[in-house]
């Protein structure tokens, strides 16, 4: 510490709104992000990790393919890999801008900060899984088993992240512990403006192709400036086709953006492939 008393800051002084973009055209599906995430966040390894529905990961590498689509014959089958973590929904209701999971938690174990990160207090969670039911992105996972760290794995545990107990719901927090660590480092240097702090989550820093970008959605200099992403024809957000309406039907887009029933995620995917963009955002209607 510099010895000077830090001026009192209100929480509302936070000007950052953390977000992420993932370029699927650059993503090779190597899984480095998933491994880095698990290592960084002390994810346990279980005897049978092929048991996907029970596996505990914050970042799931999902395989997306047009294999089941009509007309996708041999040669036309396409595959993409989708790094999917907590979408850090912002909510869309101006009076009550909660992500779907936050307002349902009976014990305030999860909340959204003014930096846009949806938190999860593992020691507060009672494991009711109501947040898991409410999440449209399947981003929350339940710890079914007591975490076990085999052999020397225990020595590699990250001291900045608590080891989650059995029976709690866990999820990605954009590695907010790194942000807190960086913030402490800045304060130690005498810089008390929290808006001066930047950080990179472990999945982004481990990506070998630079497909993942992280930054402030409100900062025009940021690689994930929201206004720029909105104008990007390659940008798409999961499950909702609302972003497509912006150019095709601006009136409907404005109407939908004012409706509460849109989680408004802060993770954007970028792809030039038409099939993939359609696959990510549109449910085939009969």
């Amino acid at each position: 510490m510099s010895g000077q008393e830090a001026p009192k800051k209100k929480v509302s002084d936070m000007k950052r709104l953390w977000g992420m973009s993932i370029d699927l055209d650059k993503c090779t599906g190597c899984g480095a992000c998933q491994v880095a995430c698990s290592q960084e966040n002390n994810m346990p390894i279980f005897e049978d990790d092929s048991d996907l529905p029970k596996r505990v990961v914050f970042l799931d590498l999902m395989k997306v393919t047009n294999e089941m689509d009509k007309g996708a014959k041999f040669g036309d089958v396409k595959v993409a890999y989708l790094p999917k973590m907590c979408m850090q929904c912002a909510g869309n209701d101006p009076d009550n801008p909660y992500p779907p999971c936050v307002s349902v938690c009976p014990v305030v174990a999860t909340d959204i900060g003014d930096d846009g990160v949806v938190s999860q207090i593992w020691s507060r969670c009672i494991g009711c899984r109501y947040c898991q039911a409410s999440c449209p992105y399947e981003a929350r996972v339940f710890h079914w088993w007591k975490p076990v760290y085999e052999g020397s794995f225990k020595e590699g545990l990250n001291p900045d992240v608590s080891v989650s107990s059995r029976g709690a719901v866990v999820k990605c927090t954009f590695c907010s512990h790194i942000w807190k660590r960086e913030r402490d480092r800045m304060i130690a240097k005498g810089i008390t403006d929290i808006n001066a702090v930047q950080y990179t989550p472990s999945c982004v820093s481990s990506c070998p192709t630079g497909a993942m970008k992280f930054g402030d959605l409100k900062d025009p200099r940021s690689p994930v400036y929201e206004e720029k992403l909105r104008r990007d024809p390659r940008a798409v957000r999961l499950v909702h086709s609302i972003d497509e309406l912006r150019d095709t039907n601006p009136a409907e887009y404005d109407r939908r953006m004012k409706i509460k029933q849109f989680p408004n995620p802060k993770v954007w995917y970028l792809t030039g492939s038409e099939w993939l963009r359609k696959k990510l955002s549109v449910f085939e209607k009969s």
Partner: protein
Amino acid sequence: MKNFIELLRNEWNSYSKNTQIALYVLFGLSALFVIFAIQILFWGLGYTDMNNNFAMGLWIIGDLGLVALGGGAFFTGFLLYILRVDKLNPLINSTVLLGFMCYLFTFILLVFDIGQPLRAWFGYAYPNWGPGLLPISMLTEVVWCLTLYFCVLCVELIPIPLKHKIMDNIPFFRYFGHYLHKLMWIMAAVGTFLSFFHQGSLGGGMWGVLYGKPVWFRPHYFFLAIVAATAGGTAFMMLIPKIAGKIMKKEVAPKETFMTLARISGVMFVFYLIFRLYDLYSLTVKYVPLADRSYADILGGYYGWWVVIAELLLCLVPIVVFNVAKLREREKYYMAGLIAGVSAISMSKVEAVLHGFSVPNFPWKGFTVYNPTIQEWFIFLGSLAIMTLVYMWFARYLPLFPHLHKGGHGDNKAHT
């Protein structure tokens, strides 16, 4: 000790062969409930082999069903004590006991469902209440309303054992029971108020607020659940005493009582069906399209159309039977109406949970299939078995049906 064993043996031998078989089954299920309860509470939910695809177990369907059907207690109490429908008086003790057990087991099942049972009290200590009077989380409201209403049911239940001939001979208990009984209308009013909220919350509001999920979201779900509880709950409050009467071969309550409640239930089922049809319509044209989905497509997989159609068809039976005097007076039709009514409301809860969890969240995923694990089955069935045993015990040893003890009708055979 020897005398006690002799007493138990005599008691056991006094039961018919069929009752003894039924008791074997019920005790067996209760024992399995205890075994799996120990496993889950001590070693965790991992051993149930549940998974993140169907994160909530079979017991949540039981939970929602018990609350909805137990909700008949609040509605019957409201009719008797507030609206003064005195004809319902012979059924009120049974109603209170059923309500009490439904709520007790709702709590018990909720404790099984949470991953951290030792933190169950966090709901009271750190409620997600927000700054205003209305709670933010529906589950917070459920926990508080259930607790308070359960307290009300305890107060309503206490006078029943106090009316037992041994207790009644002790002046303190007699007066205590008497004055508690005098408070009943206040309890009924408080109970109605509390039950109104938690019926809505646990039955519908809990799912209706999940705005990220097109399969669940609709703002009126809260009120739909209240109507469901008044319709299905009243049918349940008739069905159980009716079965008890058949087993005991006695008329546990006057036929007029059953018919009065049947008429009310029939009207409530009409309201429920209209509301449910509006619900399906609004989902199809308004709420599901908001999430870029089609309701017809959501009704796929194993738990799609047939569940909704079965629910609607089952709903029609009590509507026809209870609202047509000729039909409801005939015992067979009347029983069919009761069973169909209870099944319809239970089916609506099955639809909410199974259907809700099986619908894919991503376009590249299919519908999820659900197979309840052995623990889920036996915790669920064991709960029902314990409730049945408690009800049987009350019916045999306590004045659960005052009509039986008033003489005259008590020894008569049940209406057939």
